[in-house]
């Protein structure tokens, strides 16, 4: 059965929430009363329950299978975290109730900050950014503020071609000019080209935005040299922390020369992806940037933790560049992340990173003879990047191949990213998968590849066959966007039909 939209079966009179009748006094709305109907449909509770349960069943999820989206880190979401986030002492407190009535909230934020600083080896952390990209923005704003404080105004941010799109978008949003830096044949930053570029823009480099491990699944071996070069040029090193999952407990960004790095709590620390959000993107900062951390922040004093919310409340050395968001950030995500980190502990966090890398390499060796590694056979970090050259002359496109995976019960890997590789296929199994699960995945992928090579194009071109929907037409969706439901034109009913 097809599931209709609420607008197609709800009604404006129906209500699935009982509200106690109240004797309403005279309105004091000053003539601002709404004049027209809104048109919002309502559902009785059983109708709503069934509607959303049935809709949900059209979704793939980590809980239903391997979700190898490279760079997204789709790992197990422990339900302990959900339970903890729902404790009334966390879930039912207001961001602006007196700080004296929420000492446990400040303690939690401070504790999580401690775990984040220790595991990254950094000096400070700005907790409030609401998502990874928001964290990037925060980190780059701190960098800009530091330049400004030093009476500098460099204009250029270096970004490798393999970067997430958020990196150049963030830099551009702050008025920076983005200059691309090239990769070597092995997918990592070309040091010589970097030196040239820096020299070319001498004195005008605000910083570099680098993902490490990078989006090709490789750790940048020359990371310390890159950091030194950029520092020598007067710039800061922004590290995109999307791939921190690979190295927790194995290397600390602080030791790599990083000045700022956001942490996607939903990637590395398992807060649920929730169909696309909410995320949370705290930014760890080096000692050079710590002073510029935005409002609000928590200050340790002899009498306990203090919430600093305004410039007026700052003391010497604190120079917040401003504010990223109202209130204190994603508390609900903090609780989940801390619950996850405490559960793992220092040993478990390291083990998780090791297992993530082990699993990715296990897939690599299971598939490298049949699929194509753009940078040759070498260890990868927590994700393995293939390209689509193995599909050459098969008549099967990269997209077809991905859609055929759906029919085998899998969510496809990340496709066409990073852009530096043609027909990229980025596979990240995460540490949550068992060996049996990986073996089955490898076997299935091998079968698909062999099938493509045998020219069984129909299996691919028409895929998916077994999903809730066949291939969807994204082109026409963009050409004539229909972004909301509108009531269909009333159909004229002929008298004979009406009588029926």
């Amino acid at each position, binding site marked *: 059965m097809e599931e209709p939209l609420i607008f197609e079966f709800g009604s404006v009179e129906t209500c699935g929430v009982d509200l106690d009748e109240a004797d309403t006094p005279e309105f*004091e709305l000053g003539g601002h009363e709404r004049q027209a109907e809104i048109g919002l449909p309502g559902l009785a509770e059983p109708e709503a329950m069934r509607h959303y349960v049935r809709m949900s069943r059209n*979704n793939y999820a980590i809980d239903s299978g391997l979700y190898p989206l490279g760079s997204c880190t789709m790992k197990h979401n422990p339900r302990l975290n959900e339970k903890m986030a729902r404790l009334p002492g966390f879930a039912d*407190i207001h961001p602006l109730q*007196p700080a004296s009535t929420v000492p*446990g909230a400040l303690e939690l934020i401070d504790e999580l900050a401690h775990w984040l600083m220790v595991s990254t080896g950094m000096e400070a952390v700005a907790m409030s950014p609401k998502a990874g990209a928001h964290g990037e923005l925060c980190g780059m704003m701190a960098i800009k503020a530091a330049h400004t404080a030093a009476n500098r105004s460099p204009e250029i941010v270096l970004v490798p071609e393999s970067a997430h799109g958020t990196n150049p978008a963030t830099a551009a*949003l702050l008025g920076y000019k983005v200059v691309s830096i090239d990769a070597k044949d092995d997918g990592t930053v070309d040091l010589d080209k970097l030196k040239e570029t820096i020299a070319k823009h001498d004195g005008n480099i605000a910083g570099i935005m680098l993902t490490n491990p990078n989006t090709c699944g490789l750790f940048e071996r020359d990371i310390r040299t890159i950091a030194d070069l950029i520092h020598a040029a007067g710039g800061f090193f922004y590290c995109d922390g999307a791939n921190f999952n690979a190295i927790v407990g194995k290397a600390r960004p602080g030791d*790599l020369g990083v000045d700022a790095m956001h942490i996607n709590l939903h990637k590395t620390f398992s807060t649920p992806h929730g169909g696309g*959000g909410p995320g949370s993107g705290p930014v760890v900062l080096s000692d050079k940037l710590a002073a510029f951390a935005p409002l609000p922040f928590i200050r340790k004093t002899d009498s306990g933790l203090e919430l600093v919310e305004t410039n007026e409340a700052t003391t010497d050395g604190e120079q917040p560049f401003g504010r990223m968001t109202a209130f204190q950030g994603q508390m609900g995500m903090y609780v989940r992340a801390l619950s996850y980190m405490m559960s793992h502990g220092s040993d478990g966090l390291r083990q998780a990173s090791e297992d993530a890398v082990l699993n990715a390499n296990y897939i690599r060796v299971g598939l490298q003879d049949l699929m194509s590694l753009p940078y040759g056979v070498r*260890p990868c970090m927590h994700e393995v990047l293939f390209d689509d050259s193995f599909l050459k002359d098969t008549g099967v496109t990269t997209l077809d191949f991905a859609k055929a995976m759906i029919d085998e019960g899998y969510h496809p890997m990340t496709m066409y990213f990073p852009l530096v590789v043609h027909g990229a296929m980025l596979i990240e199994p995460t540490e949550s998968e068992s060996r049996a699960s990986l073996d089955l995945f490898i076997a299935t992928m091998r079968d698909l590849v062999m099938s493509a090579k045998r020219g069984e194009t129909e299996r691919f071109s028409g895929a998916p066959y077994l999903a809730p929907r066949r291939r969807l037409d994204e082109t026409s969706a963009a050409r004539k966007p229909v972004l909301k439901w509108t009531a269909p034109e009333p159909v004229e009913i002929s008298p004979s039909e009406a009588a029926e």
Partner: protein
Amino acid sequence: MRYLPLNDTDRSDMLARIGVNSIDDLFADIPEAVRQKDLLDLPKRASEMTVERRLSAMAAKNTSAGSVPFFVGAGAYKHHVPATVDHLIQRSEFLTSYTPYQPEITQGTLQYLFEFQTQVAQLTAMDVANASMYDGSTGTGEAVLMAHRVTKKNKAVLSGGLHPQYREVVEGLSNMAGDQVVSLPADPAGTEDILSQIDDDTSCVVVQSPSFYGQLIDLKPIAEKAHQHKALLIAVFTEVVSLGLIEPPGTQGADIVVGEGQSIGNGLNYGGPYVGLFATRQKYVRQMPGRLCGETVDAEGKRGFVLTLSTREQHIRRDKATSNICTNSGLCCLAFTIHMSLLGEAGLTKLARINHGNAVKLKKLLSGVPGVEVLNSAYFNEFTLRLPKAANGVVEALAAKGILAGLPVARLEPGNKDLENLLVVASTEVNTDDDRAAFAAALKEVLA
């Protein structure tokens, strides 16, 4: 460790299959000098029971809103959310799914986003809404940036009724991006002259109604003046329940409407995660930030939904994108959509009426307390009191008596004598007659 399926046998077998001797061989690219040798200086793994105890102990130190008479609003509101909502958003298929990059197997997410966009467009009386922003404050920042793109001007005028922290977000972004912001002084009673601030350089005017202080604002004249100068009106709200009762910004001429949706479906959560609502006119849709879900058909002609117009977005356009955003507030907008579907128009209207009614009752009671003055003539579920002494101390004194009484304006706007005695007080459907009586009595005592 309970979350890790591999055991040591698996690990050594797998290393052998990979052809390396030890796990560290796979980390060989990390320079020796920076490789972490010892464990991080953090506690070791802990059982679920232990973690639960430690976190529960922290939580127990906080005074939860539901445990006391509660009147704090100012951008986040204590409402009752049906148990159905929280149950549904915890469905594995919603909770542990990601951005619907593969629409054929994520119609669940896409369909609720389409429902959400439609609900937001209906509520605001706008043409089109996106699939949500992080929250109201960041959405306001993005709205100003969008107005700059649309008008190709860069001076924003912010009303003195805008939430101070929203203002700071806009100012911060604009300062960093090199744009201009004119922020009017605090305007508790809604009497500012904003019209005179609008000129040909103005890209947008940002007005909140109900204002931070609770005052309802007539947006029509502001829209008219703005449009005369080819500027956009950005209408902001923090209490979406108000739209059940008051005239929506869309019919008053707003060009962009942005607001906080937390009140519907979402708890207080000490400030986040929340859900930003964002709507605009059809003609501006390609300058919109954030994700959009659109309707289409599949290969068999069946209706389906996909993410669309992604050429605006960072993963395609990179430094030319309309925004750097690559997340929405997924589960929070699902919660919003479910709660709103349960309410429907009838429920939302009634909820809004109860909220307003409770505020009116509270206002009557509190204005009877000697020395207390109410500053607002027209309001929804929130208003501002002028107390005979500094509000900060009064709120602390009331907290000590077990009443969370509202927000002292000076907490967000310190150093302004005019604002020192102001208290913003909110009242929702959760407040009982007893709550209100207790508040009034305690306030009388504290002020005596």
